[in-house]
């Protein structure tokens, strides 16, 4: 296993075999481009250009089918992991082919410009998604004890907050004071905070230090109650961290999926227009 802190390719590249296949595909495209420039002219409308465009459309469609695959998990069409790998690498190849098709220039014309921007947004958001999908699980796993299902968080937090209330009722005034001031405002609802992206522990240890003072002046029983309260609080904060990061994992799709749906439609429109005119 690699030492923490070192950059390991293995962590970022899930499947070297697929990466190699992608590089081969990209290589073929680039060689074709060079041949194209040498033998003819770079033009989206000539035989070369239409080949790039058709290949791009094919990869886009095949990649888009991944979205359908995720809805039909019971159907036996191959492991979901292979589909995702094809989606990612096929999508990257798709963008390269789009560039080849547009001669590495911003296309002119309303529809074509929309198409180009939609493609770019889809691809870039996809790369962002890949990054998030590599980085967030590791971050979540690195320093949190709690592992919780996203949809459960509201009800679990409600339970924690209920237990904390109950506990605080039976606590001596000092602890109750501490609970009301420090803990209660933050324990009642799940909170998303950007800070968790930069520090997954969310400064919990700092907060715990605040409590250290208090524990010195309490009796043993009360100290146990305080510990329990802090445990509840810490768990809740960890859930917040989970909540924040898992929200990101879910929301980035809103940048990717709707645009890709539009992309499929606009590509179909583009193909229709090209054939018609």
């Amino acid at each position: 296993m690699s030492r923490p802190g070192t950059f390991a390719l293995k962590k970022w590249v899930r499947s070297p075999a697929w990466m190699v296949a992608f590089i081969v595909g990209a290589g073929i495209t680039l060689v074709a481009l060079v041949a194209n420039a040498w033998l003819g002219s770079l033009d989206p409308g000539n035989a070369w250009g239409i080949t790039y465009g058709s290949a791009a459309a094919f990869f886009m469609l095949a990649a888009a089918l991944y979205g359908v695959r995720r809805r039909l998990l019971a159907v036996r069409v191959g492991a979901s992991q292979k589909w995702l790998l094809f989606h990612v690498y096929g999508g990257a190849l798709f963008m390269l082919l789009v560039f080849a098709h547009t001669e590495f220039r911003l296309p002119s014309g309303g529809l074509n410009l929309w198409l180009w921007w939609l493609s770019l947004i889809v691809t870039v958001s996809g790369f962002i998604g890949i990054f998030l999908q590599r980085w967030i699980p590791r971050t979540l796993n690195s320093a949190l004890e709690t592992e919780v299902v996203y949809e459960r968080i509201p009800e679990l937090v409600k339970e924690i907050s209920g237990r904390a209330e109950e506990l605080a009722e039976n606590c001596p005034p000092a602890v109750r004071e501490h609970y009301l001031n420090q803990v209660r405002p933050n324990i009642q609802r799940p909170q998303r905070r950007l800070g968790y992206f930069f520090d997954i522990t969310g400064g919990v240890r700092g907060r715990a230090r605040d409590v250290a003072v208090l524990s010195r002046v309490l009796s043993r029983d009360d100290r146990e109650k305080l510990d329990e309260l802090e445990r509840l609080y810490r768990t809740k904060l960890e859930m917040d961290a989970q909540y924040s990061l898992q929200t990101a994992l879910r929301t980035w799709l809103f940048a990717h999926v709707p645009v890709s749906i539009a992309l499929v439609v606009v590509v179909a429109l583009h193909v229709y227009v090209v054939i018609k005119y």
Partner: protein
Amino acid sequence: MDKKGTFSDMRLGVGKDYIFPARRSKMIIAGVIVVAVVLAAYVFDTKVFDIGFTSPGAVSSNHAIFESKCELCHDPFASVTNSVTNNKCAVCHENSLSELGIYSFAGHYLYRSGDPARVEKALAEYGSREKPCAHCHEEHQGRNARISVIGDHECAACHEHDAFVGAHPEFEFVRSSIPDDSTMKFTHVHHTKLVVQRNEKLGRDASLEGACQYCHRPEADGQHFAPIEFDAHCGECHLAGADATKKFAVKDPGDPTKVGVETLAMLIAARKPGTLWALNTNPNEFKMIGPKISKKPIYHEDPWIVENLRMIRRHLYPDQGLSDLLKTSVEDFAGTGELYAEAIRTLQSYSEGLRGRPEPEVQTDLETIDSLIVAVRNAAAAGTLDRAAFATGPMAATVSDEMKSDLFDLADKLAQACLVCHYVEDGMIRRVRADQRVFTRGEFDHRAHLVQTGCLDCHTGIPITTAMTQQEALSQAIDGSFIQNVPGIDNCTQCHAPRKADDSCATCHFMHPNKSGQNEELVRSSGR
């Protein structure tokens, strides 16, 4: 030690949203919204800004008003490779469809060659290479694109020569060695000297260039030079109008054996087509000196002299019918159609001279002339045109040998004034073949070149250069006549080369006829 992951040990229910998350439907709805935005942009562009949304690029400014009306140019689903069919172009660009139309492919073969037979042959052999207009004239390249400018690679699809320097053949007139023969007694060297001297004397531009341009005067478009005409270019020195003819015996209508010229009165009385010009002639130019007649002044192409020569010719060559209509001799190279073109020109010049005359006889005769013109054209179209056609009147009776020699003698005397410059054969002044367009398939613009270089820098045939001083130039030893003075391709490639002046095909050649409309003339003259 033992990390219990979940907080609670109780199995809490997880709702359907866990298995079928609502966000999935939300994303699809969001996708539909984005599609709606794109469609809204479509509608907005088309209706409000009148831009073609699906257009892959702005059309050139010529077609800009049609930008959002795709189907004015595009025929939907017409073909996999091209939906802009020629009949769409023909709606505005007339004659792009008709065979031999200006923009038609067949027209391309006819262009310059003027030979319809060439069209058929070429269509049979190369017809498959035919491409629609839109193939070369690609639109959607932006507002400022000039779609009439075509790249060399399109020409090279059919024509072998793909570069100017090194791959272009020598010019045809150089290759085929058209005889350096203007059919006139004229030398450039001699005349250049004289014109220079004269210009100097008269205070005009006394440079060599000025001498060239004294005769070779650019037309308004600057591309070509005005045809050399006697009155404009030669008349200042030659035939100033003071000369008179010799005294000639007059023809006796009662005595056919007597050799003599026809007087003005005789010509007016005769009123044959071709002599009606005589009505305009000033009788005071003729002087009777005893029984002989003389005329003063003599004009260039003096009609009285020409008519008398024609009269003599009729005696000498009774079967030369068509030449009856000619002013000068014409060597009719096969298929060039110069013979009938010259006949037409003669007849037209007669009718022009007579229009406006009130006499009814003149009108009748004009009709005759016009009908002759039509007859000649029809004969040309039908292919029945020959020298024997179109006798304009009863031929003279056969003459005796003695009379023949007298007639030849008379002809020589009549043509004496002409002999200074012209050659006379068989009683006909030999037609001058000066000032011909040497490029049959290419265009050359003199003005563009004259601003950068001098005449003699390219036309190096004359052994005088602009570098010489006048003294040196005039003292050059000169011998021989030198008419043909057009440089070969080597001269052009000095400047028109890669990374220098434009060396693309379209610089000199055109797929479709140029503004000079030479093709139009050929089309008309082919009778179609």
